[in-house]
């Protein structure tokens, strides 16, 4: 690991001041992704600004019946928070489907949003990568791309966003609160991450001098009919090949509201509102689910090793919608897919 300076931020305003004053510095909270990247020479900050002691560690009710999650709430604490387990079990299950308990104990809510792709070419400094070194080329498009994206790709990058938590947050219509020199602002989780386009080096729309302070959930948590179905090569402690977050509001067998987001398939959590619209007002039955899956995947493109993901995603969407409609969410510990 390279040598660097280390400072602590005394409050959010101080954190923003410090990062604005030194563009080569980075915030560190849990450190689970950043230190890993620094050990591999992918990230080389001149200074780490320790924000882990800032008072952003609580989960509080908002005025409109939702919850505000402080950016430094550890992933494990969030997954097992009583209000999250009761009202947003989709979020709890998605978090528990990712990483290991040790990592979830360390990783923060804000850091989970900001983790970088696990594309192995991004991690391998001996190979070209437009995300790591803009303009150098993409090694994955014609390389070993079994884990890579099938939706929203560009000629510059086919990397995926690795988070499970963010897939649930996208489905739940979460908002991200950020602070910067000009004050605070909010953006939808679905607008927080970017598609690669011709600037794959930019993962998010967070400005370099901004800090994530909280994630806010609206009141509707889809606690009765939901699932997080994660398909991966190893049953635990592995990144998704395809994951599907579903939340349904049912009126008898009729779908009143539908939420559908995918992980492991794109540069950001993939939410398709046309598929949700096609589900709403319809009976919760296989033909309707299959039609929604077709809509999600109509623009999907495979790159060889990952082409199987298109059919895998189709079947995972149908299975996840079936689990959610039945009220039988996928178990995290029992690996049999219901």
């Amino acid at each position, binding site marked *: *690991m*390279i*040598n*660097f*300076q*280390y400072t602590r931020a005394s409050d959010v305003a101080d954190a923003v001041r410090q990062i604005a004053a030194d563009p080569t510095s980075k915030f*560190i909270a849990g*450190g*689970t992704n950043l*230190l*890993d990247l620094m*050990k591999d020479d992918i990230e080389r900050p001149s200074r*780490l600004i*320790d924000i*882990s002691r800032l008072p952003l560690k609580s989960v509080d009710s908002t005025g409109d019946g939702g919850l505000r999650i402080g950016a430094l709430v550890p992933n*494990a604490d969030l997954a*097992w928070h009583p209000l999250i387990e009761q009202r947003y079990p989709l979020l709890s299950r998605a978090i528990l489907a990712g*990483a*290991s*308990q*040790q*990592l979830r*104990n*360390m990783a923060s809510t804000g850091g989970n949003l900001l983790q970088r792709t696990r594309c192995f070419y991004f991690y391998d400094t001996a190979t070209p990568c437009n995300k790591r070194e803009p303009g150098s080329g993409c090694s994955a498009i014609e390389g070993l791309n079994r884990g890579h994206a099938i939706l929203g790709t560009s000629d510059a990058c086919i990397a995926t966003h690795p988070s499970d938590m963010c897939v649930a947050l996208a489905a739940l219509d979460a908002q991200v609160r950020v602070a910067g020199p000009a004050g605070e602002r909010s953006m939808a989780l679905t607008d927080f991450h970017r598609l690669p386009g011709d600037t794959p080096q930019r993962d998010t729309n967070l400005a370099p001098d901004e800090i994530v302070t909280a994630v806010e959930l609206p009141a509707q948590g889809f606690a009765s009919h939901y699932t997080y179905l994660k398909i991966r090569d190893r049953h*635990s*402690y592995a990144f998704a090949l395809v994951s599907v977050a579903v939340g349904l509001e049912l009126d008898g067998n009729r779908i009143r509201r539908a939420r559908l987001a995918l992980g492991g398939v794109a540069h950001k959590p993939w939410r398709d509102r046309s598929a949700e619209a096609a589900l709403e007002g319809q009976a919760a039955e296989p033909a309707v689910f299959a039609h929604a899956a077709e809509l999600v995947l109509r623009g999907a493109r495979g790159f060889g090793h990952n082409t199987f993901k298109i059919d895998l995603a189709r079947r995972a969407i149908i299975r996840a919608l079936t689990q959610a409609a039945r009220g039988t969410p996928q178990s*995290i*510990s*029992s*690996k049999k897919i219901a």
Partner: protein
Amino acid sequence: MARTTAAGQANLSIPDLIPITLIVNGAEPWITLLDVLREHLDLTGTKKGCDHGQCGACTVLVEGRRINSCLTLAVMKDGASITTIEGLAGNGTLHPLQQAFIDHDAFQCGYCTPGQICSAAGLIAEGKAKTADEIRELMSGNICRCAAYPNIVAAIQQAMRAP
């Protein structure tokens, strides 16, 4: 507990470990907690496996919570209470998990064992895992290349039943 001397007469009492705080020279900001434990404090029970948070060999308890010490800067844990495998046994007696790992032969080469035991101590403190499936899921951050997994699960179940 009391220990009888060779002469069989006097009793020597072995006290519990007492937490102490020393500030010796300080540490560079880029030193991980794992390297401070092993290289500076010579507590080599905690193992360096992958050094990337993937294998769990470096698992220690910070304020009672299990973490990967290889992905933690020591400077960020200034003032924290750390428990390594060397600190689990107390009062001259093995920790119930240490005894259970011996009872169930829950290792072969032993390299992952300190991390497995610290991780299992964290798991028991969390109180979430009840079934074997749940133990397996919540222990998935600890890899055992010898594949002693069935015996590790059995050992943890025994320790969970211990008073």
